[in-house]
């Protein structure tokens, strides 16, 4: 019988090696798999390369991994947490900055067996021309993200982006059944199904486990074929979910635009 429910999360998650690539769902605290991220941290996993849209605004979840020095590299579109940038500029973590839609599409492509694709997003910018600093040393850019191949289609430049296949994926769902079928709730869905698709080993924490005949087959957001392990977390949705912490403007230079003007 297929039964993907697990009691012993640590036992199963311990299969993740140090240095692993990890795809993580969530958009800030919304749909962030905190129980799985905490377990990864508790297990002492380190040198991780995370693919996640943002670090978040606190030291939970990805922020905790960052604070405890577990990250080797972050691939993200909008890290937010100021302490992440301190680590980046100090040369303690690498940073691959990608457009948000490109990150989502790369996860889906990797999960879908699409090796690479051409997107117009980021063409002609420093995110594709090899200018962006992957790492810092002694306060200066040390290595750069590789320039991306560019090619015209229909008269417009497109950049070649690779699919992401991660060693492990961490997903936060709403409901799940023993076959690993998952539903998400509202905008907590976001990157979660895509992270789940691209993991070689996919863990899902859910708020509710349900019998195998409860979810309508027409309404499964992430089919069980993508899912290896399902755990139930009693942890409530974080109270900070809707607290926005913005990057403070530098008071020394009034020509610098406010965070509001930037997006």
């Amino acid at each position, binding site marked *: 019988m297929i039964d993907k429910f697990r009691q012993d999360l640590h036992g199963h998650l311990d299969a993740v090696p140090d240095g692993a690539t990890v795809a993580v769902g969530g958009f800030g605290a919304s749909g962030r798999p905190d129980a799985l991220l905490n377990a990864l941290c508790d297990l002492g996993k380190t040198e991780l390369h995370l693919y996640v849209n943002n670090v978040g605004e606190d030291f939970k979840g990805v922020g905790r991994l960052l604070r405890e020095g577990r990250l080797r590299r972050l691939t993200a579109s909008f890290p937010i947490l100021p302490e992440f940038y301190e680590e980046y500029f100090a040369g303690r973590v690498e940073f691959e900055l990608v457009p948000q*839609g490109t990150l989502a599409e790369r996860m889906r492509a990797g999960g879908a067996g699409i090796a690479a694709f051409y997107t117009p997003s980021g063409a002609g910018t420093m995110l594709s021309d090899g200018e962006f600093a992957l790492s810092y040393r002694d306060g200066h850019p040390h290595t750069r993200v590789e320039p991306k191949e560019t090619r015209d289609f229909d008269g417009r430049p497109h950049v070649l982006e690779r699919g992401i296949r991660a060693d492990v994926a961490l997903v936060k769902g709403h409901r799940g059944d023993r076959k690993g079928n998952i539903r998400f709730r509202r905008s907590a869905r976001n990157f979660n199904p895509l992270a789940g698709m691209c993991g070689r080993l996919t863990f899902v924490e859910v708020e509710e486990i349900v019998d195998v005949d409860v979810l309508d087959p027409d309404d499964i957001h992430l089919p069980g074929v993508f899912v290896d392990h399902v755990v139930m977390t009693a942890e409530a949705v974080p109270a900070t*979910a809707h607290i926005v912490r913005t990057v403070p403007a530098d008071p020394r230079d*009034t020509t610098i635009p406010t965070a509001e003007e930037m997006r």
Partner: protein
Amino acid sequence: MSSTPTETTPAPPRGLDRDQVAARVARDLLDGYTVNLGVGIPLAVPRFIPEDVEVVLHAENGVLGLGPHPGEGHEDPDLTDAGKKPVSLRPGAAIVDSAMSFAVIRGGHLDVTILGALQVSAAGDLANWYVPGRNPAVGGAMDLVAGTPQVWICMEHVDRKGVPKLVRECTFPLTGARVVTRVYTDLAVFHVEDGGLVLVECAPGVSPETVRRHTEAEYTERLAG
């Protein structure tokens, strides 16, 4: 070089306030449009959309049909906009995952995206994601400008030092090249046509000369009557 910042840069002119710019933009939204809003002035636009104009608001995190803040105590932590603020849903809303959300964006299915800007060039290049030396983050900005047929910029005409933001060439890193289709500022409205800026409207009480004095980019004029 009259508009390059110097010691004699003119004092910032007085045109529309932020809400008035938002209201001006709102007037141009058509019934049935699907629209993505950036942070800043754009977020104020929905308050000014007329009752008889139904617009679908899209958020990058996968919401089609955003409604206003649900009211104190009614927040749903699983339902936020792309700024991670609590929202409600309009009737007929749809939730999708991030890949589908950006399929909507990149595939050209939005009608308009309304964004803030650091600089817009004479050719419609846009810089609005990164100030070198600060913390780089891009979010969905590059996807939005690459995919959306109409990219409308809402911004102050000059920065806090009085330096024009409509420039010959962007000095900040680009979000996208030749992507802007309209610019709404406190002083004026420009359209981008055939790769060049066209001044189509001055704010009430603002003269074309005032606009010119605070604009570095070249542009043509096609002001109504």
